[in-house]
């Protein structure tokens, strides 16, 4: 009898708990928001701009990519005549270089190749390329990256691993220069 009472009490309490947790199912209908010109890959709202080849967020700051990865970006509003700057902040860990001494990153903007990037050192880097204005027409620019060598699935974990990327974007006007320090 006591056991029966215990089980019934358990059921009542857990049913109450279940009712509460169902409120966590959320869905948001959104219509008017826009793509960003630059994405912090850890931002959940930017996740839809990561079209392929980005693994889950790590340490709330960055993601490993696969050997091929792509992002969708909005062209900057103001683009100088020479074009916009495509940038990517990325890191290459020692572990990667130990197993893959050198690799080449090819870059395509809307299907057109830009200068590739040779990678042979560990460290943090910022890639920058100029993107001509004729590639920036329309509402969306897609940028594809591909590494010719990478860490195969199973060599570190079950993912194919490329670079550690924290941000990718297009910049129209250069960032304003820091104001000069006042003379003492």
């Amino acid at each position, binding site marked *: 009898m*006591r*056991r029966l009472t*215990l*089980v019934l009490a*358990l*059921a009542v309490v*857990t*049913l109450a*708990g*279940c009712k509460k*947790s*169902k409120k*966590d*199912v*959320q*869905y*948001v*209908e*959104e*219509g*008017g*928001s*826009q*793509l960003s010109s630059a994405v912090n890959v850890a931002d*959940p*709202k930017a*996740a*839809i701009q*990561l*079209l*392929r*080849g*980005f*693994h*889950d967020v790590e340490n709330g700051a960055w993601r490993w990519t*696969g050997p*091929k*990865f*792509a992002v*969708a970006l909005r062209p900057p509003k103001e683009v100088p005549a020479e074009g916009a700057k495509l940038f990517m902040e990325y890191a290459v860990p020692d572990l990667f270089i130990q197993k893959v001494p050198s690799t080449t990153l090819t870059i395509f903007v*809307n299907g057109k190749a830009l200068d590739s990037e040779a990678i042979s050192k560990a460290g943090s880097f910022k890639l920058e390329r100029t993107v001509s204005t004729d590639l920036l027409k*329309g*509402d*969306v*620019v*897609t940028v594809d990256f591909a590494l010719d060598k990478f860490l195969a*699935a*199973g060599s570190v*974990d*079950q*993912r*194919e691993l490329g670079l550690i990327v924290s941000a990718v974007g297009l910049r129209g006007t250069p960032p304003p220069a820091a104001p000069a320090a006042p003379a003492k």
Partner: protein
Amino acid sequence: MRERLAGFALACAVCLWLYWPGLMTWFAMDDFAWLGLRQAAGDAGWLAVLFSPKAQGTVRPLSERLYFLGLEGLFGIEALPFRIVAFATQLLNLWLVMRLVDRVTGVRAAGVVAALLWLANSALGLAMSWTSAYNQILWPCFLLAACNARWTWLESGSRRARWAEWAFFLLGFGALELQVVYPVIAAALTLLYRRERWRDLPPLFAVAGAYAVFNRAMAPAQTSTVYTLYWDGSLFATFGTYLRMATGLWRPELTREYAEWWTAAEWLAAAGVVAGLGWMAWRREKWGLFGVVWFLATLGPIVPLKNHISDYYLTVPAIGLAMAMGVVVARRPVWALAPVVAYAIGSGYWARQTVNYNYARAEQGRALFGGVQEAMRLHPGNLILLTAVSSEQYWGVMNDNPFRLVPGLKVYLAPGGEENSEKHPELGDPGRFVLPGPAARAALEAGQAVVYSPAGGKLRNVTGLWLGIAKQRWGDELSPLVDMGQPLMAGQLDKGWHPIEQGFRWSEGRASLRLGATAEVRSLTLDGFRGGEAGARGEVTIVAAVNGVDVGRWVMPKDDSSLAVTAALPEGLDRAKPVRVEVRITPVLREPGPGGRELGLAFGKIGLR
């Protein structure tokens, strides 16, 4: 009696306190495959659903088939009843552990200590928070019940107890095939305490042996190395790994901060077990040996699986060590204090971490499943494309396709989504859920699809943003893969195709289509079957041509109903232009009656990979 009930109440309270989130945990991974059993029963029949061997030859009608069929039938896709049954079974297990230890050893409080030590083992974390692991809870229930019945028989000679033991022994096969080890445990109990009653043991061994032979005969050949049995030197390494894991403080994949402190706690707990067993041996306490036999017997069948080491497999072996140490701790509590505290806090911590992880993962799944159902309500009849699905969400939810459980729900991964996930070819291919880019664009432009993102925890409608991306990215491109059951891809089909049937199309004797060739594709793949003709045509020959050049010729034997073949693409293929693929099938079938259709082969997918 009052003391015993108080001990049981304490064990129940600790169980609920430690594993509480497991009671609330929703479904994950394999659960969704089992939840589809009711649908399968309609097609295959109940007997086949209950007893047909699954992967690795497992037949677990009680702990998997009936458990899911029964509770889904009564409550639908509600996890709580499953969890209540699992917890209730575990509470019963605690009672059975207590009774067995108390009755055999007669040591006051040893039973409840054993139950608590077992509960604290982190190996229980998965079983207490994943519905598909119910077999690890139900199986010890039968093992312990059979042992209790055997002890009654050994003590009293009761025939009812003997029948009860046989009933629990046989029912245990319905929970887990590892029940074959029960005779070893029964033999240990008998030979250690009532040696003269050994004569009833051979029938137990005979039944277990017959079941083992039957089970191995039923098991399909292993194509994956994960479940391959290795009878080599790796046995010692695997056994050593499990010995270390049995402390509950370590697993091979675990990342532990302050690793040196954890290692010290491991040493302390392990030293406690060794000292305890040594002390029992010195005092000629048979119970210590029984605990060791239990541990080795229930762990033994797992040791050859060197590529599938999991703490989950220690759920039942841990009972053996807990039962032995229960007596040591009850008799020498002061000596045992330090190792027990190190073990209980450390192992209990990892048990709770496991439960918390499984709870959080299942919540992601529940939010995704619930959100998609709500999206279907908002956009009836539309395809739902999911973008930005994390690897965890894919493998925790999508891989076992829970959406098939909701009639009318058509869910795909957005193009490229398969490349965000870890690779587990032995579990499945995320690519099978991807709607190719051109088809996604066509569906979005026609207003037949919506795009949702689960990134950030809540499902967001991002259709507007995605339409712009799809238009830009897949302009007028052709898909490299055509799903014949997908109406949105009909634009790539040329001559020789009949209307869509259930996920496939019949070709005529000659049929063609156009595919887009990306820089990466290397081969042509064809998936098809010959339908329900039962080999009436005899051998069927299939020839595939790419841009007019034959690339493959295959012969389907009379008794073979399906085709899954690959052929290399010709050298120098012009990838800038649409690739024309033609298939030719001989002989063809002709439907009876005037105007009967010419049927070549039923194709599911044709594509370039």
